[in-house]
């Protein structure tokens, strides 16, 4: 048995998703398991979607017009929220969950993520790489999907790194653990593209053999201008060649320029990595000149300095709660950024940029209460409704309102408390994470893993040639090297410090 297959097998047992819903009354479930799931190496079956689910007696943080409701019920029908309120009746056959003493929130949404990407997230070669697409390299078997579900996350904006002024096309996903890559995509999310300003696109923080233009913030602006002008010229030449009687040769098709035209036409929205106020004002200027739309500045650590300018243009900010000082352009970052932005009317979210932080975005939101005194329900929206709006899925997710997707979390306590944890995470009315089931299966999984390792060791004795030929045969405790790629990693070779 090769190491790879061994690890895959062991992992498959360890990360089995929750078993199907345990119903009180008859479960009304779709027994059919999507056959495509078999194509996914080590995922578990997609959980059932009961015809109706009633969560009873909880404190419900709707993140919507109903606010926070005590002793309330949440009714789900066929994967959509049907009603939120007191004393809802359970439809016949509904899965009923007694949630007395528990808290329920909308599923958390991470507006800046790099999980579930197969290989590097940076196409670091060129200053503009608008043709590359995250959707082409989604890795639905990434264990981080399950781990983040376990922290109450239900959706993520998967972005490229920040090596390019105009980077690749993003993918907004739901964390449907077990689904094949194409089924992770969040239907109806606005197409987006990653931009990046400042130190990363100008290659400040790592050694590169061949430096490229630009090396300054001045150059970053002009690199964007140059490429937009190229895109317009490309369109003009194509139109000219297509006009009746023209003998002009049409330009060679370019996926890069086509993507830039989508941006210029407003069909693809910009998520721009930026830290400093100056560079954000620069891109605001370009967006006015070229008419493209910035959905959100990503990181935006100095957004508090230009909150009014952002609010006036309806540009969002997707920021860290409290990161700072890891490089020079984040020296002026302050943890009160979120509070100032909310106060001045900017649609603001707190993101992770990290497979670790994404597992506790609820307590990241709590930092807006700590720094600047944001009201608790508004703080929670930093990781629910606000990122949903920024990603163009505000009509589908981010709050518990009738008609929206049944993406929600059951917490064992106050959702902004450091002592609370997610007990169940539901997406589309399916229970993708259940802590109780996860705990119940652990000893069984550990035993299976030991058995597999023993078997592998036995084979190794029989055939000492085999394992020795593989790359890294010896140590089952060796960390998986593919785990937790650094946020916005730089182009090779790697630096000593990896900075977002």
């Amino acid at each position, binding site marked *: 048995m090769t190491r790879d297959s061994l*690890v895959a097998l062991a992992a498959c047992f*360890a*990360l089995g998703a929750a078993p199907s819903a345990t119903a009180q009354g008859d479960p009304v479930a779709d027994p059919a398991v999507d056959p495509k799931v078999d194509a996914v190496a080590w995922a578990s079956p997609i959980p059932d979607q009961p015809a109706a689910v009633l969560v009873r007696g909880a404190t419900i943080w709707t993140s919507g017009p109903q606010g926070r409701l005590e002793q309330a019920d949440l009714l789900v029908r066929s994967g959509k929220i049907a009603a939120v309120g007191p004393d809802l009746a359970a439809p016949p056959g509904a899965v009923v969950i007694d949630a007395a003493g528990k808290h329920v929130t909308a599923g958390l949404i991470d507006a800046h993520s790099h999980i579930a990407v197969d290989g590097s997230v940076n196409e670091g070669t060129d200053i503009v790489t608008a043709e590359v697409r995250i959707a082409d390299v989604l890795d639905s078997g990434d264990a*981080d999907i399950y*781990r983040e579900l*376990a922290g109450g996350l239900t959706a993520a904006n998967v972005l490229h790194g920040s090596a390019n002024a105009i980077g690749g096309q993003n993918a907004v996903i739901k964390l449907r653990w077990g689904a094949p890559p194409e089924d992770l995509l969040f239907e109806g999310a606005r197409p987006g593209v990653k931009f990046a300003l400042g*130190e990363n696109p100008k290659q*400040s*923080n790592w050694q590169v053999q061949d430096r490229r233009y630009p090396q300054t913030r001045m150059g970053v602006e002009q690199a964007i201008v140059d490429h937009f002008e190229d895109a317009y010229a490309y369109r003009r030449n194509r139109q000219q060649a297509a006009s009746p009687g023209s003998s002009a040769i049409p330009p060679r098709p370019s996926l890069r320029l086509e993507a830039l035209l989508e941006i210029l036409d407003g069909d693809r929205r910009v998520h721009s990595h930026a830290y400093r106020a100056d560079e954000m004002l620069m891109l605001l200027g370009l967006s006015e000149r070229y008419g493209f739309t910035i959905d959100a500045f990503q990181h935006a650590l100095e957004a*508090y300095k230009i909150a*009014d*300018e952002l609010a*006036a243009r309806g540009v969002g900010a997707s920021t*860290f*709660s*409290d990161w*700072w*000082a*890891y*490089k*020079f352009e984040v020296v002026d970052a*302050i943890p*009160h950024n979120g509070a*100032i932005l909310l*106060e001045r009317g900017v649609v603001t979210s707190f993101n992770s940029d*990290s*497979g*670790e*932080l994404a*597992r*506790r975005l609820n307590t990241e939101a*709590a*930092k807006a*209460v*700590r*720094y*600047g005194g944001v009201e*608790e329900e508004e703080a929670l929206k930093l990781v629910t409704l606000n990122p949903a709006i920024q990603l163009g899925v505000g009509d589908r997710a981010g709050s518990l309102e009738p008609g929206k997707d049944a993406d929600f979390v059951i917490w064992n306590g106050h959702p*902004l408390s*450091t*002592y609370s*944890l997610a007990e169940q995470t539901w997406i589309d009315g399916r229970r993708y994470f259940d802590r109780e089931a*996860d705990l119940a299966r*652990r000893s069984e*999984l550990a035993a299976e893993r030991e058995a597999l390792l023993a078997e592998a060791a036995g084979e190794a004795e029989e055939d000492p040639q085999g394992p020795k030929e593989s*790359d890294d045969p*010896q140590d089952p*405790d*060796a*960390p*998986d*090297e593919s*785990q*937790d*790629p*650094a946020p916005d990693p730089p182009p090779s*070779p*790697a630096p000593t*410090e990896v*900075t977002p």
Partner: protein
Amino acid sequence: MTRTRAFTAPGRPFVAPALAGAVAVLSFAGLAAPPAARAETLAFVGGTVHPVSGPPLAGATLLVEGERIAAVGSGVVVPEGARVIDVAGKHLYPGFLHPQTDLGLVEVSSVRGTVDTTEIGQVNPNLRAEVAFNADSFRLPPAAAGGVVAAHVVPRGGVLSGTSAVMRLQGWNWRDMTIAAPVGMHLWWPRASRAGWWDRTTPEELEKRRKEELEVLDETLERARAYGRALAAAAAQPARGPAPDPRLDALQPVLAGEVPLFVHADTLPQIEAALDWLAEKGFERAVLVAGYDVARAAERVAAAGVPVILDTVHRVPSRAWEPYDSAYTAAARLHEAGVRFAIAAGGAGADSENARNLPFEAATAAAFGLPREIALEAITLRSAEILGVGDRLGSLEPGKEASFFVADGDPLEIRTAIESVWIAGREVDRSEDRQWRLYRRYAERPLPAAEGE
């Protein structure tokens, strides 16, 4: 140009520099005299005191004289002339002691000129962390505002990286901020796994490097022992001693058991090898600084009686087969096995600039099974005891440093406000916190006039 200084007396509001300048010009037209150190007596009355060394005391008084705690309790008589601070409805806790950080050694991580964490070379036992501690680092005030009053500052690099120090986070220079040094000698256990996703070292090269580092370690300690014998021989009879060697000199207190050895071992194979080595070499004073794998060796660590600094609760499991909460539950598993441990923070967003997030890593350990009072102890009293400063820090008891904070609730909750922080009897001045100043400035920015461009 007149030089002016704006001194802020403890508890007094910040005086704007312009105003302070004007005052100084009017009164002296020159240098303002520095304030003499004075031993103020402070009485915090009416709050709930959480000594950590014992149960909470409601309605108790905390009496501070100069830098030290004079008395704690409900029957404490407030002396004449004491400044009385009413903390009714509030909670007093000992300040946090971060047990493993590079605070003060680094300013901006990516700017090399501001980084003094990591020396070149494998054997640097003679390096001393405290001498590179930047007393005016802009990382200190935000940490202090978060209740972190002291930090164990540790040098990195190579196999033996030098000695660490416990530093106070407020003061005039590193000398008056040093609470204890040397606290420990730092040994970074050789690893046989790659450093990260970018590392392309082959398994053969890794194994070769691991063996070489172990040889360097054993050989260095052997040389240090021989050097020590030569020194002793030279002292006993006036013969010529060995040529002075600062590196080998620095190891003598470790060999004599006067300075503990802090062994940094992240993964299980490293931890097990380090425990074997410690037993073999007979080091009795050792501390294990370990990742969450240490919980898998908890029984053994407990039996060996080695205290642990659990380095980072907020970690993603490094192997796909592990339970998702492996790092979150490590502290609880150590506790159940009877291991004495402190908790260090180093998760995403908790490098030393965010040392203020230390209590929230302890809280996560509590969410995943560690009793809450142990979580608090793991960043206060136990941290102090493991670092050998349990007589100075970590609890609110008479004779200890008056380094504590006033909060409106449980400080392991993010939503709790820490209202004032006192380090060695002096209130931390919020205006020294650059982040706070930027916040105040931009929170009050007037709405811009209609824009042109």
